[in-house]
């Protein structure tokens, strides 16, 4: 793939939004640093202001007060359209332009930036390929001829077209069926690993946050940050009651997928039973135990007992505290 722009750091300082004639702020003094190249997920119940906060970053919603600094540059007052041409934007409702072909849709921002035609065409084809749509087949079609999932992919391709350093995504996979959604999530995760853009991802689905986020910001009313940390930190050490209730039950079970076997203490020697590589997670090991294994071999290092797995979990917990 051609040279990609890697992500830039985003600093949000005391971002506030107060709508006229309302009793309180929709978003109140939101402070957050989103590290460059990371995917940060804003997660929280409906109405907590997570989408409003995200939309203030590219000023689709103008902040009432506060500062936005991207890549060290204060962009709070730069002309909005200039700012947005360097930020990819994917919304839940997709919003493809129905009167334009798929290719033209994807080419929107390069066109606004004045790229020459051949460069644009090459880039559009590259991106359609990237999201799994054959350009020769889909390029000249119109949005209404595509399924919901296909339209989502075009939306992502369109957002990436001008190779922005920052990507804003508001429940981008929400409008698809569960099967397609899982597929899209996995594909996005793989893509993000490769592209390393700075992504702000909004969702109300905690599982999606766990899957996609390098960091998760759990938000409550007025976008108050209840906790900001890695998925493992949030699961193993929820900071407040609100986070706890949001995380829900069976935190330990869900943590299993986030801890790899490489750091776990193993007994020496191999035994009868299944083998897993070091890169596998505790979850695969648990799968083995549930289905009848007495011990799991970890590569050639040795074998893992059930008790060892239990203590691995509790030490992860303690470590996070």
């Amino acid at each position, binding site marked *: 793939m051609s040279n990609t722009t890697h992500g830039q750091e985003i600093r949000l300082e005391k971002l506030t939004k107060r709508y006229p004639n309302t009793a309180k702020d929709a978003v109140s003094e939101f402070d957050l640093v989103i590290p460059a190249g990371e995917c940060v997920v804003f997660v929280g119940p409906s109405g907590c202001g997570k989408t409003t906060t995200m939309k203030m970053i*590219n000023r*689709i919603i103008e902040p009432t007060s506060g500062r936005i600094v991207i890549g060290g540059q204060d962009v709070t007052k730069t002309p*909005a*359209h*200039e*700012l*947005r*041409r*360097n930020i990819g*934007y994917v*919304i839940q*409702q*997709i*919003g*493809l*332009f*129905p*009167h*334009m*072909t798929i290719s033209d849709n994807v080419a*929107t*921002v390069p066109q*606004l930036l004045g790229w020459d035609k051949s460069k644009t065409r090459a880039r559009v084809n590259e991106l359609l*390929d*990237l*999201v*799994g749509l*054959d350009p020769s087949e889909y390029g000249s*079609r*119109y*949005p*209404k*001829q595509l*399924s919901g*999932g*296909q339209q989502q*992919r075009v939306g992502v391709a*369109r957002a990436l077209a001008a190779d922005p350093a920052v990507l804003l995504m508001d429940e981008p996979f929400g409008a698809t069926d569960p099967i397609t959604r899982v*597929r899209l999530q996995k*594909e*996005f995760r*793989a*893509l993000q690993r490769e592209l390393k853009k700075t992504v702000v991802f909004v969702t109300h689905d905690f599982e999606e946050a766990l899957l996609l986020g390098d960091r998760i910001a759990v938000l409550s009313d007025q976008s108050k940050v209840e906790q900001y940390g890695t998925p493992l930190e949030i699961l193993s050490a929820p900071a407040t009651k609100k986070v706890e209730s949001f995380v829900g039950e069976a935190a330990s079970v869900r943590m299993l997928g986030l801890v790899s076997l490489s750091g776990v203490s193993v007994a020496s020697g191999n035994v009868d039973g299944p083998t897993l590589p070091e890169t596998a997670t505790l979850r695969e090991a648990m799968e083995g135990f549930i289905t009848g294994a007495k011990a799991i071999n970890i590569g050639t290092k040795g074998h893992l007992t059930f008790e060892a797995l239990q203590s691995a979990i509790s030490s992860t917990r303690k470590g996070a505290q």
Partner: protein
Amino acid sequence: MAKALAQPNLTAGSMYSQSARLIFQRHRSLIIQPILILIISAGLAIGLSRAHLDVIEKVTINKKFIFRAIQDHLILSFASAAVILAVAIPAGILLTRRRYKKFTPIVLILANIGQAFPAVGVLIIAGILFGFGKPIAIFSFAAFGILPILRNTIVGLQEIDPFIIESAMGMGMTPKQALRQIELPLAVPVILAGVRTTLILTVGVATLGVFVNGGGLGTLIIPGLKLNRELVLVTGGILTVIVAFTMDWLARAAEELLRPRGI
């Protein structure tokens, strides 16, 4: 993203054949209509050339008079439609912008009044004040016919999915770019429907040109009516209908040509 498994294109095939059928249906009426118009015109021409005309009828039923009347009628209709378009579409666009939205009720009331006025009375007053002739006729007819296009422009723009517009702004379009590249193209079908309505309306109203030295097919209808000469009256009426049908056909053809694909 790894190349996803090819999605089964459940809808593409059926969609294509459905569009093809729709296109044929649409085009069928576009072809039939002008043929009908030609048949009726030919029938009228033959009937008139064969008719035995008395002195009164000969004044209006002759090639020179009729062609002049049709020509004037077309001038009146097209010119008023042009004035209406020049005023109503920009007005409609302005009224859907956030800053001017609040003026919408007042403007719509004014446009409605234009339709409610007794047309002949207003026409004559305007003629006395500003001078009789085609110009005042054209402006008066424009006032009468402004409502459909104004309303359709507003509605056409308002009913665009707001998330499409949000997307456009999110991509980094300026408001003007979004208007030109996204909003107007999407509103075109509704606006054009309004244009078609207006054109038919102005063809009807243009028959009043006879009262203010504007010419038009009223110069057959009114004498035919007052002098009890049915042939003249009916000829004027049929010609007006033919002109209206022709306008309708032209507007429909324009709608077909200008409708953006994909909607």
